[in-house]
């Protein structure tokens, strides 16, 4: 075992048709997923959809009822956790309380028979990597939550694992530290080039760090693709509505287009081809016009209900004549001009959207 970090060490990981039930709860229901070498895949989904279970099966902490786990071309389903060479960071703080940060990081190396001096040096390097070079002699109770998770990351990386597994490592941290640390995790992951599975239920976090995002529901992957595609080309309503805010607007569908608030919008594959249906429209796709044409009605006539500022942009919700509440995302300058109760006309931008019956 050498202590220098290989810059590209990723292996392919493949989960094949995994099933796992707890009593009558089907935690994994035929889940399949392949990670390319060096790729960071985020599993995203609502609570209880089986994300943690999938990760634990990959780590060997949980046995699948059926299915295979293949790493670098080898079926490892029957190999115990301790021999799988996977670095894990847990949601709960998991540093060994009786060891300093350095001893924690060196723990895995000691088990691998790396001698004392080398071990200390390597542990120091990994702590430097996560920005904690100055805290090597601290115990867990002397560190903040964010620092503890950094040490946990260094500890997981120090054994030069084949795969890095992160189960909501940031969920116990406050918003600012969260953003900071997630960017850092991504930087280090790219730097080390390790195949990584990252579990979260925070969609912003998922979109920010992932090469690909897998959206899970009820023990299966609903869609897996790059963040951009997941966001702009969802294949079903669950994915569209789980990722980001979505309006459901009724539209007249014919063929591959639908007419929504008077505008013709192209429809994504998977949408129905005729009849009336709901078209899923993102807030930033909604336009708000303050100029009311006199004497004629428009399907987008609406009344402003609330306005809110979110920094550079803001949100406006307005109620259509039929009672539907529509959320629009606008530049702050425009939000400032609008007032509650004001009459406006809503239209939608003609970019592809998903429709459901």
């Amino acid at each position, binding site marked *: 075992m050498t202590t220098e970090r290989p810059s590209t060490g990723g292996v392919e990981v493949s989960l094949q048709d995994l099933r796992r039930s707890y009593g009558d709860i089907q935690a994994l229901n035929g889940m399949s997923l392949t990670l390319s070498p060096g790729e960071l895949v985020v599993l995203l989904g609502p609570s209880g959809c089986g994300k943690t279970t999938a990760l634990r099966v990959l*780590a060997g*902490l949980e046995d699948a009822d059926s299915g295979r786990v293949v790493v670098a071309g080898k079926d490892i389903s029957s190999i*115990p*956790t*301790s*021999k*799988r*060479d*996977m*670095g*894990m960071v*847990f949601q*709960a*703080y*998991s540093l*060994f*309380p*009786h060891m*300093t940060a350095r001893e924690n990081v060196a*723990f*895995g190396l000691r*088990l*691998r028979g790396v001698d004392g001096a080398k071990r200390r040096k390597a542990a120091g390097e990994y702590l430097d990597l996560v920005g904690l070079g100055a805290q090597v*002699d601290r*115990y867990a109770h*002397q560190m903040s939550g964010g620092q503890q998770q950094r040490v*946990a990351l260094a*500890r*997981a990386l120090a*054994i030069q694992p084949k795969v890095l*597994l992160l189960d909501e490592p940031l969920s116990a941290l406050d918003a600012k530290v969260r953003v900071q640390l997630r960017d850092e995790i991504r930087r280090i992951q790219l730097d080390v080039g390790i195949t990584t599975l990252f579990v979260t239920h925070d969609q912003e976090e998922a979109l920010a760090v992932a090469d690909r995002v897998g959206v899970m529901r009820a023990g299966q992957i609903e869609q897996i693709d790059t963040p951009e595609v997941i966001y702009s080309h969802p294949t079903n309503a669950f994915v569209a509505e789980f990722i980001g805010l979505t309006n459901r607007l009724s539209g007249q569908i014919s063929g591959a287009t639908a007419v929504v608030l008077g505008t013709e919008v192209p429809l994504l594959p998977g949408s129905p081809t005729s009849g009336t249906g709901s078209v899923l429209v993102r807030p930033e796709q909604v336009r708000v016009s303050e100029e009311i044409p006199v004497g004629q009605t428009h399907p987008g006539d609406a009344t402003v209900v609330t306005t809110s500022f979110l920094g550079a942009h803001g949100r406006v919700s307005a109620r259509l004549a039929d009672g539907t509440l529509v959320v629009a995302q606008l530049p702050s300058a425009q939000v400032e001009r609008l007032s509650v109760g004001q009459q406006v006309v809503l239209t939608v931008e003609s970019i592809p959207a998903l429709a459901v019956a």
Partner: protein
Amino acid sequence: MTTVSDSSVPVVASSVGPPPRKLRAARRRRTTVFRWITVVIVGGFFLIPLYSLFESSTKNLGGRRVWDAWQAVGSLATADDPNSKLLWVGLRNSLFLVALTLIIMLVLLVPTMTWIRLRVPWMRRTMEFVCLLALTIPAIVLVVGLAPIYRQISHILSTDTIWLCFAYAVLVLPFAYRSLDAGLDAIDVKTLSEAARSLGSSWTGVILRIVIPNIRSAVVSACFISLALVLGEFTFASLLNRQNFATAIFQVGQDDGRLAMALSLVSLLVAFVLLLVLSLFSHSRKGRKGKTA
């Protein structure tokens, strides 16, 4: 410390009643007095019997102070008569029993309790019930059940006193369980062991390197109480016809009251010294960690 903030208290208060500083001082005096009363009562509770023991071991019927019992103790320690041999054998047996019982207790309880927490948490109640059972059954009744078992042990192993360690392990189970249970409750056994496993640790490694160091004080207190119990155990040994320190003292002191009392004091002293050694051992380890902390 508290008087420092007194300067900020407005002087106005003094015109109304006794100044707060005085009130507080009075309260502090009361607390101190109360504390000392507690110490004296508790101390008396422990020390008076010991003192009486010492008094009776050094007074003859006429009320004169005599040291013959203690001289006898001194000579027993060195002499080569049957009584002296009895005592030394008893003491040696008891010390071995302490060591063996502690080992059996720890080897039995720590891995089992860890395993139950990790894999079969619904078994915890059952385990607790089984462990606490020994507490609810009087020793004399336990012996009735143990007698036939020890007849078998005499056949299979030997009649050596050392095999009492099995019975003693059962005896200390309730106390050791309670202490270890509290220790394990204070750490996240599941996450810590999973982290260690993912880093490549075997199950033995998890127990020895992760669990035990983190429940050290619970282990020490389990050992404390086990040690005290085993060292003073009389019923099992006597009724099962084995020789330990307690039975030896009983036998040697049977026809000399003063000697019996002197020996009792000596046995308390032995227990005290052992506990002291154990606590020094556990403290020195903690102290080393505390320095870097």
